[in-house]
């Protein structure tokens, strides 16, 4: 399983990376949506992307819209991982093509529960 972690916080990326590696995931990382599209192309895709909402250059919502326009990544699950906690935002992300939504802060168990819901854990 390959996971793409997209967050402008290197601390958050490290936290998520450690959790995912502990579950046997291979990880690739990016600090914004634009870089994430580049990393995804280089890696030839991923099984799941964990995507922050508020990032410089290209935010997570725009990334979801962009990647869902690329048929080669149709099978990739996308989970927003963000401080945005209004239910309207959750609905907006799902409409754009996200599959799951995890609000910050979260625990290792919260992340694992969501990955289990996606069937990748």
């Amino acid at each position: 399983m390959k996971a793409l972690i997209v967050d402008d916080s290197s601390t958050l990326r490290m936290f998520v990376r450690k959790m995912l590696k502990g579950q046997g995931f291979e990880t690739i990382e990016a600090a914004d949506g634009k870089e994430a599209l580049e990393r995804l192309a280089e890696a030839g895709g991923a099984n799941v992307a964990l995507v922050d909402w508020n990032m410089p250059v290209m935010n997570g919502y725009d990334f979801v819209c962009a990647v869902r326009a690329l048929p080669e990544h149709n099978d990739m699950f996308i989970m927003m991982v963000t401080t945005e906690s209004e239910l309207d935002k959750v609905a907006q992300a799902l409409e754009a093509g996200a599959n799951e939504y995890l609000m910050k802060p979260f625990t290792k168990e919260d992340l694992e529960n969501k990955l289990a819901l996606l069937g990748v854990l």
Partner: protein
Amino acid sequence: MVTFSISPADFDYIRDFVKRRSAIVLDDGKEYLVESRLLQVARKRSLTSLEELMSKLRSGMDKSLLESVVDAMTTNETSWFRDLHPFQVLKERILPEMCNGSNPKKELNIWSAACSSGQEPYTIAMIIKDYFPMREGWDVKILGCDLSAEMISRARAGLYSKLEINRGLPAMLMVKYFQQDGRNARIKDDIMKMVTFRQMNLVEQWPFLPKMDVIFLRNVMIYFTPQVKKEILRKARAVLKPGGYLFLGAAETTINLDDSFEVLRLNKTTCYRVRT
């Protein structure tokens, strides 16, 4: 400033008191847990020392304090779709089986026996709403019970913090069955009205309960002695309909406690039925 350091005598008093009231066993080494939870009770009641709290408790005059202490000692760890697999089995096997014509009365009774703040019975309600296509014309009743009056009150309110709705609730259901209420999320009326809540102590005499098709009795028996577990399983067996299903927590079993149950391994979960 509240300062605590629980004495062995106070710990033993709390341990005996909690066991008498709830059958929950607080083993040696749980002093920190007891102390930290008494601290929460003291803060809520503006008490400034352990001595003051213990004195009030020992007097037995303040019934609500007695209840608050028992509430505080019971673990209210919970989440939506906790352990996931029992709910998949409910959705994919049990509900289709129960609505295949073998249930002419079109009644379905499901009991969440230790429901904490309501996540388990509301999870069941959302599954039925989404995946029980014949529910129109059926009499579906979901009962949620808990020892803690505070938890039952929270469950009835159906109001959950960001941290709580983050725990295992699929985003699709979050959007579909919850509405924003300030910084919290409130479960919508159509799900809320599917569930009835009542306070109930599993170790005391059970009230009249309807015969249940499915019982969720999860992650509560781990706190009890084998004798209490046997008694609860005996009572659960009496409440379960023939062919009904019992779910226990992942660390719990009927084996060596009640051989009237057969063990069924379904998908990635274990459930129990009374042998015929």
